[in-house]
């Protein structure tokens, strides 16, 4: 009982203070979310340590719902007609920014360690991006234009491709390890799972989205729109999580269905969310900040630096290459990759999943598991801060933010 009371109080204080640390960050030219995150870091485990591990666990539902709202927003920005105007660029960007990142990181880590299963697993983590940072920056600065549109599409969809690549690469790495210990696994069977996961996530999201759109278009009182949206976001996130899926694709598919069925309703929903999203971002990044472990930076090491550099280069060249192949504008070619650097919760989740799998494979597996966890935790800290800052720079240079 007692812990709940203080939690309500602390969360309230955090939100109120967060507004002002966000303001402070903004004054030095950084996105507000950096301020929210720093406050979280100060109040969280690497600072005052006001939140016990148990309390933090009890707050994960906020993060999940917030991520659901972010994904839903992304989906609702993905109007197929305007996407088509951006051209097949999007497809080649998506494929190249993920695969090039995978290749770069795998190659770089292989060079450093000379260990194939090890390198493959790090490559597998690399394509995952954290959409919340980019979306928060876009909304805070009210960015508009082609780069903005493309960013929405890319950070949304690449979650799916990242899961696929992770599935394949992790399976390959596992079978290498398994052959070391004399066992064997079927690459196809392990890799089939992520494909199925994506299919089910999207299909259930589209189905929910269909029902949602029907209901929104018949709603008789506008006052009910926020409640309806909240209900469907919770439902899609809850369903995805309960079968162990990524909580991003399903709510995104719900928003996507809405955006491509009716323009009028999309506007109505967006208007009703506008006053909610800033609060969602404060909560989300504050909680992300409380999880940051500044002491993990020590363990960054050569491996971490390699990962950070290879991943950044991979994203930027991959996106640039994809944009060139798809005939996208020079602005996209130059700046898109910079907007895709965030990496956080999803990658940490993947690293935890890997770790729990890999301890089966003897000493080598356990070593990889430990290295993956510590390195991804440390590099996420870097990417969570650099990502939004770079996204803002990219949007400003592209002239899509008016300061």
């Amino acid at each position, binding site marked *: 009982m007692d812990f709940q009371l203080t939690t309500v109080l602390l969360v309230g204080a*955090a939100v109120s203070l967060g507004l002002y640390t966000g303001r402070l960050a903004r004054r030095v030219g950084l996105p507000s979310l950096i301020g929210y995150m720093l406050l979280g870091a100060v109040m969280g485990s690497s600072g005052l340590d006001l939140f016990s591990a148990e309390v933090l666990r009890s707050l994960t539902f906020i993060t999940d719902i917030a991520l659901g709202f972010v994904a839903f927003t992304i989906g609702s920005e993905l109007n197929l007609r305007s996407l088509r105007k951006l051209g097949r660029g999007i497809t080649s960007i998506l494929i190249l920014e993920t695969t090039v990142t995978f290749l770069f990181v795998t190659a770089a880590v292989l060079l450093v360690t000379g260990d194939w299963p090890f390198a493959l697993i790090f490559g597998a983590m690399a394509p995952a991006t954290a959409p919340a940072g980019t979306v928060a920056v876009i909304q805070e600065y009210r960015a508009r234009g082609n780069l903005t549109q493309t960013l929405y599409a890319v950070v949304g969809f690449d979650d799916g491709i990242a899961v696929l690549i992770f599935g394949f690469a992790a399976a390959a790495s596992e079978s290498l390890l398994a052959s070391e210990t004399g066992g064997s696994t079927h690459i196809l069977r392990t890799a089939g799972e992520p494909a199925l996961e994506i299919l089910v996530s999207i299909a259930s999201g589209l189905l929910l989205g269909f029902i949602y759109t029907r209901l929104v278009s018949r709603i008789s009182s506008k006052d009910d729109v*926020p*409640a309806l949206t909240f209900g469907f976001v919770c439902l899609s996130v*809850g369903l995805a999580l309960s079968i162990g899926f990524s909580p991003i694709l399903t709510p995104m598919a719900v928003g996507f269905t809405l955006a491509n069925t009716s323009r009028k309703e999309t506007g109505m929903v967006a208007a009703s969310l506008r*006053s909610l999203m800033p609060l969602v971002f404060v909560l989300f990044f504050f909680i992300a900040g409380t999880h940051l472990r500044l002491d993990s930076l020590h363990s960054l090491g050569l491996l971490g630096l390699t990962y950070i550099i290879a991943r950044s280069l991979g994203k930027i060249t991959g996106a640039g290459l994809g944009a060139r192949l798809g005939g996208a504008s020079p602005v996209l070619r130059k700046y898109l990759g910079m907007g895709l650097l965030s990496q956080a919760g999803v990658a940490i989740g993947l690293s935890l999943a890997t770790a729990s799998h890999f301890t089966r494979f003897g000493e080598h597996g356990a070593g990889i598991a430990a290295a993956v966890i510590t390195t991804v935790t440390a590099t996420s800290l870097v990417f969570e801060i650099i990502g939004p800052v770079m996204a803002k720079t990219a949007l400003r240079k592209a002239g899509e933010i008016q300061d």
Partner: protein
Amino acid sequence: MESIPVMAIIGAATVVAIYFGRLVKRTGLPSLLGYMILGVVMGTSLLGLLGEGELLSLQFITEIALGYVAFSIGAELNLKALRRLGKGIIFIILAESFAAFILVSAAIYVAFGDLPMAILFGALAPASAPAGTVAVIQEYKARGNLTKALYAVVGFDDGLAVIIFGFSAAMATRMLQAETSVVTGGLLGGIVEPLSEIGMSIGIGALAGIVFSFLARRLKPVSDSPSLIFGFVLMTVGISQWLDISLILTCMLLGMVLANSSSSSAVRNMVGQLRDFMNLLFILFFLLAGAHLKLGALPGLGLLGVIYVLSRTAGLMGGAWLGAVTGRSEEKIRKYLGLGILSQAGVAIGLSLLVQQFCVEIGTGHALEIGAAVITTITATSIIFEIVGPICAKHALTRAGEIHAREDG
């Protein structure tokens, strides 16, 4: 991990509740009854989709929602506007609370001849549940003097209810202790404690309100105001729980300081943004309230419950009328205000748990009997007041002409 299915359940329940509410509204009743019915269906009494464990982990939603309700009550209480309603309000609050206390005590004493029990039931009678009345006002977008008076009465009478409860509960416990002749603590404690609780609630609420309105006035992007309100409501709720004082009073003060220190257009602007979420909050609040209702308690109503329901209703309505007449309030307030304040729910159940605890501490057969009677009766009568209260409030507002032509959107 177990919170995951809960999230899906809450999501689905919110969606279904919207339509249950709609259905109920079509029959001329307030939507919140639909939310509550759905809660009952999903709750422990029927399907059990939301069990005791889940409800406990979701309790913070109820508390935050109540904080928002109290805040939005406070934000409506502009002193200048209240003064126009006259001293009637003060008379009404005093009269309805004391009349409810006196009538209930008297009726139960006459029926059962048990003075401590009668006093304890009387002590619980003035407590009201503001959420039902506020939800009805906001759903039908009611406007006018009765609406304003209702906001003021349901907000402030929480304070008076605490005082009456504290004093009379102390008196009753003393009588029960006297039966075993181990009297501890004086009567004085029974009045000092609630008074200091109220003093603290008002002080803390006002302090939070001053800081809050200072910040709110300077808030640059207005789009941040929902976050600021959220932060302060949570902080105030958290502090109130921590100090064990009334979160209704503190959060109401928070809103009231804002309403009286900023220009009315600025307040309207901020509170207007709240409206978007209030519906969602009401859905969650009444859904959970419904899930808590123990239909199994209804057969325990008995003669005691019937007397309590009737005398409390008579006391509140008669008292409100008397207060309005004494304070020379206008006719529609005189006639209809009492009808609007019948809701009784969480606060009373919380107090009845407290009573039971006292009784267990005293430990005599008589005391234990009373403790059990209080819990079962209040649980059962709350079901009735939670349903009848909002219906009567809507009826009162309609009769007073403050709900305008049926609008469906």
